[in-house]
């Protein structure tokens, strides 16, 4: 027997098993309809959950992109101040962020895909639930008990298969979302810890720094450093709190024409 046929038989028997609880035909109809409405609610909740996760990932992408831009700015200032060591540190961190950002963007796309699939699943189930409700009322009103049995069987098999399919879709979406939420929590911690905010501590010994360093691509850093050096000109430098140059105020003072303060 082919794989398609075997999956069909097993899937259908699993999907229908859940509906074989009530014995009275009318009870079966009502019970099934209740189950369908419950599943529809679950799908709606699932769509909302996936959307929430997607928005959270989008927020993280924005935060990390801002951070990368800040580090780029710091690297440029460091080059202007003749501090290649600080520039390298900033670019190393920026390179680490780039891979995180890429990974998050992939997650965002995957969540978007799940969200779209669930919305379509919801539409399919909604249409079938409506059809079932109409069929249910017709069966109750029109057919004798003996005839009703046959009609109910027909209606139940189709809706049972759809419910099984949508149930599986929901379960898979939940599993994928949970995996991504776990990874997202790690990024949240990274952002909340402030480890990404300050590239001025060259000897930063926390795990996150080491992780970022490990993630970074040396060749990218060197190439960008060379580009910065080639295109840089000495310039006035500010050193607000948290700035990469804050740790080396003498380097700033050495530049002479410093515009102190003014920024929070």
């Amino acid at each position, binding site marked *: *027997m*082919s*794989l*398609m*046929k*075997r*999956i*069909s038989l*097993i*899937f*259908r028997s699993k999907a229908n098993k859940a509906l074989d609880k009530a014995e009275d035909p009318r009870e079966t109809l009502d019970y099934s309809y209740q189950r369908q409405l419950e599943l529809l609610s679950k799908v709606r909740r699932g769509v909302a959950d996936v959307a929430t996760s997607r928005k959270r990932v989008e927020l993280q992408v924005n935060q990390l992109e801002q951070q990368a831009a800040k580090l780029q700015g710091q690297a440029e200032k460091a080059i202007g101040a003749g501090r290649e060591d600080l520039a390298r540190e900033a670019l190393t961190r920026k390179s680490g962020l780039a891979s995180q950002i890429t990974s998050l963007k992939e997650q965002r796309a995957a969540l978007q895909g799940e969200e779209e*699939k669930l919305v*379509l*699943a919801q*539409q*399919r189930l909604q*249409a*079938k639930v*409506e*059809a*079932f409700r109409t*069929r249910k009322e017709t069966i109750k009103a029109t057919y004798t008990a003996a005839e009703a049995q046959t009609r109910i069987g*027909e*209606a139940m*098999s*189709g*809706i049972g*298969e759809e419910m099984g*399919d949508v149930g*599986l*879709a929901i379960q*898979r979406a939940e599993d994928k979302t949970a995996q991504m939420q776990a990874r997202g929590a790690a990024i949240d911690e990274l952002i909340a810890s402030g480890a990404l905010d300050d590239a001025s501590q060259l000897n930063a010994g926390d795990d996150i720094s080491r992780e970022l360093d490990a993630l970074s691509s040396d060749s990218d850093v060197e190439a960008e450093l060379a580009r910065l050096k080639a295109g840089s000109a000495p310039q006035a430098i500010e050193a607000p709190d948290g700035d990469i140059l804050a740790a080396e105020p003498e380097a700033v003072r050495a530049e002479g024409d410093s515009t102190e303060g003014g920024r929070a």
Partner: protein
Amino acid sequence: MIVRILGEGQYDLDDHALDALNGLDNQIEQAIDAGDEDMFRTALHGLLSGVRASGTHHELDSLDESDLILPPPDATIDEVRQLLGDDGLIPG
């Protein structure tokens, strides 16, 4: 003939179109037996693309049972084994 792709809904296919896809169905089966994820993915992708290309969407508000059911496009070999029952592949 009605074919359901899990997670996508039902398609109407004529029998000739389905005959043409039987080779891919066999390949999927072989890939599962061999535990060859790449072959499985390629064959499954081909089979689902064939169903989508040759079929038309079945009426959304029908309550018809499908003649055949296929795994979702991103299913793994392990997931298909689960679909086939807890004991892996069933001889048949």
